């Protein structure tokens, strides 16, 4: 009963904040609504005995990605964007698109299975802890997709470094080492 009511609460908050995210006029408030949403998603993971996922959800999504969103919201002059009424001009196209997305979701939902799948029952997960379970799955069964994801991220990192490097030559080219005290310094 307690578990169920917690689930209900989380689900309700997730839906409400998701709607609020789209409805808020102020982008910072929207980002905060997403923050609350992420939190309750972490709560759902906890209900599923996935405490590692819950913690990672908060650290990565709330702690890093959402902060970056905030960064962008602060730096980009949002006042101009607010004037935009709609992204898509025609109601019809919008309706068709949303309908297609809805159909896709419904179709996808049929593949959901109720209850644990594979060799990992709740007891098995609890025995060797969730963290180890995820680790062994990623590094054995799903090692190829994992490596592919890692490669894609690497490309993104290199791209980011390249972009940042161009800026650097413009602005911080004044650092020259002239004093002996700084000789062993490798961070300047």
């Amino acid at each position, binding site marked *: 009963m307690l578990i169920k009511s917690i689930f209900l609460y989380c689900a309700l908050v997730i839906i409400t904040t998701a709607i609020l995210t789209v409805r808020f006029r102020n982008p910072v408030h929207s980002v905060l609504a997403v923050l609350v949403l992420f939190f309750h998603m972490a709560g759902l993971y906890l209900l599923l005995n996935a405490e590692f996922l819950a913690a990672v959800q908060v650290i990565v999504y709330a702690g890093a990605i959402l902060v970056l969103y905030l960064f962008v919201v602060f730096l980009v002059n949002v006042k101009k*964007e607010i004037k*935009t*009424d*709609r992204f898509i001009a025609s109601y019809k196209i919008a309706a068709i698109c949303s309908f297609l997305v809805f159909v896709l979701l419904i179709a996808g939902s049929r593949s959901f299975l109720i209850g644990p799948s594979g060799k990992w029952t709740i007891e098995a997960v609890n025995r060797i802890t969730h963290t180890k379970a995820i680790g062994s799955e990623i590094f054995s069964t799903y090692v190829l997709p994992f490596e592919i994801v890692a490669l894609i991220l690497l490309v993104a990192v290199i791209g980011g470094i390249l972009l940042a490097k161009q*800026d650097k030559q413009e*602005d911080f080219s004044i650092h020259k080492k002239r004093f002996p*005290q*700084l000789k062993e*310094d490798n961070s300047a």
Partner: protein
Amino acid sequence: MSRKISFNCPVQAGDEDRYRIQMGPQHPATHGVLRVDLDLDGEIIRKCNPHVGYLHRGFEKLAEHRTYVQNLVLTDRLDYMAAMANNVGYCEAVEKLLAIEVPQRSRYLRTMVCEMARLASHLLWLATHALDIGAMTVFLYCFREREELLEIFAELCGSRLTNTYTRLGGVRQDVTHSIMMKLEKFVDSFPSNLEEYETLIDTNRIWLKRTIDVGTVGADEAVGLCLTGASLRGSGVDYDIRKHFPYAAYDFMDFEVPLGETGDTYARYRCRIEEMLQSNSILRQCIERMPPGPIIGDDAPDLIMPNKPGRKVEVDVPAQQSLIKLVEDRETFMEGDVYVATEVPKGELGFYFVSDGNGTPYRMHIRSPSFLHISALKTMAKGSMLADLIAIIGTLDVVLGECDR
């Protein structure tokens, strides 16, 4: 229906997208009521426009309505960190104009108080400069030393900041034995104390990173910007008025003028530190070579001076009137103009007098180093980061009381 979606990229933002900050006039790191109008691009300063005048008291106008002796007290309020040096600068200028001879002992005394003022001012500079960059302990250590100097000032002339110690033709009071003892003790202990600060910041890697290559000015550029004092010498220009136009007893002193090479904040920092050691050695020479004799010349225009031999004070006449009378009586008053510069801790403090034979200056212009240093801020801060601006303001060593006059 507007469908234009703009994706502003802040890196290539135009002028209208710059982040504008009014730094000051109430800001912990602008050393008084300086306001700097900043255009930021991220944290990089694209445009920097200093605004002064919040402390403008119109000394130049005021001086035209007061006698030469009365104006002396105004000079205390210029650079209130080193009021002694301003007093000396003013008196040297008026003495040149009125051709007053100064006895040897008082010249030595002037040199002595000048160097004490330089130490006091440089200590305060080091304290605030270090605090600006974030080293808070140096701040309090420096005040410990400065306190001793101010105590000596208080014993010498009864006040700690606005001293009004010099008089036209000499100084107000002679030193006592206990003052000399205290000074000697200070002079003995100062170099080792200075070493203490240096262990804290001199080779500290963070300090070096924050000061090296920050606010760099080349030698020619520094001269063009009219920088003087240690701010100029940090760029390697050998210009010290104590050497170029010796005044007081600097003729008889052995000292060197420390020069930097790179012209960055670190070089200026080193320059001032070395200067403190030189000042200390000048102080020691003053103590050793102090000649006996009168402290004020016989032909000096008088202020109430009970100690002065051979001159009666008219108690009945209000002090001000007698003073004006004495000054107006002088026959040495001539029509002419004169410019005399002295080396105060901040740089070149000059007084330009135009006299048309009255007891009051016809025009007095004060060439204050801080004013010109602040005008150099515009050029020096451009392209550096917000945190560097603080370091640059600190390294220029400005006092707004002197800047605004």
